[in-house]
């Protein structure tokens, strides 16, 4: 795919061309960036600043459309930044900054039978990988986990690119009742020749997936999401432990061997800014309440 200076001139501006809401906490943004759409590969992420005073937050590239020149992000509103973006990031709006694709692309290797596991929001970023494995001729089993049927999204997209899809919900309101790790057990029981499992989701979920496959010795890759600042390897904030090694998720990852990752260490480090995050969230929701006319009703 040729990169040209034209892309550079056109490509910047970061216009949101489409916005779609999956639920009251999950939304999709399709952003124009032709050069990034050309460069993006499965497993990579971007860093976004929604406005000038904003925070740099990492988001996985959930899809890219080279012809349309767009990349797709799927965001879960969890704190100040992602909730504020839920309000401000409408079609036609522009992001202040968007840099990427970052991270080492997922190695779409010679695995002939793979299980792609997405938990909750992790369903979005696992999609380009599932599609890439399929295009590469592998047998792809998609396992999607959600809390309940109202949160389910992209089931159709996965059905289109997977040979099998196992849908799991915590309460059994759609698909099988259980966690994605139960889905993995079911897949392992049905297929003795799985080459690789790839899991993306919250740390507890990825840890559970790694523990499920460990006794079977199946290679299990996870995509880690520690707190990041620059995303270029400069700050060390995103460091994670793999056995006795320290790696920077933004430039050495984000994909790592799930059997080596110290998930407890990572989970602890994700809580680093808890106090500040809560303070920011409280302050922000208070100002929203004051400014928003509806809430006075």
């Amino acid at each position, binding site marked *: 795919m040729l990169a040209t200076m034209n892309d550079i001139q056109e490509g910047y501006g970061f216009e949101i061309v489409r916005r779609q809401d999956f639920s009251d906490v999950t939304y999709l943004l399709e952003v124009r960036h032709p050069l990034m759409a050309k460069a993006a590969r499965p497993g990579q992420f971007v860093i976004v600043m929604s406005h000038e005073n904003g925070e740099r937050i990492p988001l996985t590239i959930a899809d890219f459309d080279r012809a349309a020149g767009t990349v797709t992000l799927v965001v879960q509103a969890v704190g100040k930044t992602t909730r504020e973006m839920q309000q401000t990031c409408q079609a036609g709006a522009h992001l202040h900054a968007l840099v990427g*694709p970052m991270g080492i692309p997922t190695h779409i290797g010679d695995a002939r039978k793979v299980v792609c596991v997405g938990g909750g929001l992790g369903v979005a970023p696992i999609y380009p990988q599932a599609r890439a494995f399929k295009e590469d001729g592998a047998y792809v089993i998609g396992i999607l986990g959600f809390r309940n049927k109202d949160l389910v999204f992209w089931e159709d997209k996965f059905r289109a690119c997977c040979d099998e899809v196992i849908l799991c919900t915590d309460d059994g309101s759609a698909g099988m009742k259980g966690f994605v790790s139960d889905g993995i057990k079911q897949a392992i029981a049905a297929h003795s020749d799985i080459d690789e499992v790839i899991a993306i989701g919250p740390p507890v979920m990825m840890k559970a997936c790694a523990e499920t496959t460990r006794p079977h010795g199946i290679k299990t890759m996870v995509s880690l999401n520690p707190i990041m600042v620059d995303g270029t390897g400069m700050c060390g904030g995103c460091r994670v432990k793999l056995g006795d090694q*320290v790696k920077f998720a933004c430039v050495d990852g984000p994909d790592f061997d799930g059997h080596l990752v110290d998930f407890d260490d990572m989970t602890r480090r994700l809580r680093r*800014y808890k106090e*500040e995050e809560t303070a920011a969230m409280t302050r922000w929701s208070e100002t929203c309440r004051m400014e928003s006319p509806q809430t006075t009703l």
Partner: protein
Amino acid sequence: MAKKRTVRTIPQQRTPVREQDPRERATNFAEVNCGYSEAEALLESQRCLFCADPVCIAGCPVGINIPDFIERIGAKDFRGAYDAIGRTNLLPAVCGRVCPQETQCEGECTVGDSLEPVAIGRLERFVGDRAIAEGWANLPHIEPAGRRVGIVGSGPAGMACAADMAKAGCDVTVFEAFHEPGGVLRYGIPDFRLPNEVIDAEIANLRRLGVKFQCNTLVGRLFTIAQMIDEMGFDAVFIGTGAGYPAMLGIPGDSLNGVLSANELLTRCNLMRARDFPAYDTPIPLGRHVAVVGAGNTAMDAMRVSLRLGAQNVTCVYRRSKAECPARAEETHHAEQEGVVFKWLTAPLEILGDDKGNVRGMRCITMMLGEPDKSGRARPVPVAGSEHEIDCDQVVFAIGTNANPVIGQTSRLRLDKRGYIETDADLATSMAGVFAGGDIVTGAATVIEAMGAGRKAARNMKAYLGIREPGCDLAAATIFGIQASERNFARILSA
């Protein structure tokens, strides 16, 4: 010139510079050193002897004609002084502030043999600030050369290379990964040492030369170096991506919450403006008792930023003694004045955590100086039985950096053993048309050295592109191993 000056006739005291009061400044981010007034600059200019053999010049990595610019200051020809500096240094307001003058120009100054040396840095800054205030810029007549040059990284190396190539008529685009240009000047060095307005002014000057800046561009990942040459139509590329990748402590407890690199602390504070949280969204960990490991410029910045963010006490833990401390003398001095406690000859052994995984202290050991090591400095060796604990709730490490891997991962450039980009003496890399310089070639160094590298690369890039101009150093011994004498006629002979 009237009577010849001698060490005896010049003002004996170095003209002091006004500084913010230590107690007051330790709570704000305004600049500490207020700079010379015109009268002070004139007075200090009287201290230069205009030596027949101006040894100061040799101490300056870019060889500024120091007596020349000082003489012009004395004659109140400030514009002339600016032009004199501008022939070799594009960023006088920056270098005057951040150069380690005591080991460079001022370290060599003859006056320094018997008195305090001429305050070359402060004079240079005076000229640089005057230029910014007056809006001076060296904007030569530029003849388009029909060549396109891509610069990767907007730190001092990239800025210097960009300026020279733009002056040589090239169409220059600088690509920067961050959302704002400036490199370490922007994200690392805090405002109280180098205000953002100075960097903004220098970037604006580059823009006036026609340099384009494309921020939010991670080269290597958005497009590769090879693509720049093969597809995007750049005739030459300069890589000045700096030495990111902070070295880890590698001691138990180094992933506890409250342990972070100076780069992370400084980037959050300076670039992301976390010091103004919550007006800005980025949070910053606020330690009450902060221990900083290391004693270079980065460590000093981390300590002084921590004080300004409200730390009650800040301790510097350094395994060598004050004599080996690599920071600029002024910074160590300022840090002491502001109340940083220095624990020289102390090395960390372990960071201690509480049951929530937060830092509660650090176990250290006292060192003594032994035989010289490879670097020629005395090797610190632990004193048996001297283990002790210091109380702290935050540990910041500033113990050096490694090479950033992104360009290496995404190109076929030859790297050295430690992962830095390998170049020849002309700063040419193993890829034709691709040059590199600054920290990504030498490892962490100084602003002026990075700038010097950018300019040197520019000179050789011009030769590579066949751009001839006055001052273009076609006499460089070899380019790509081709001798200067045979350069225009070089034939590649098949073996």
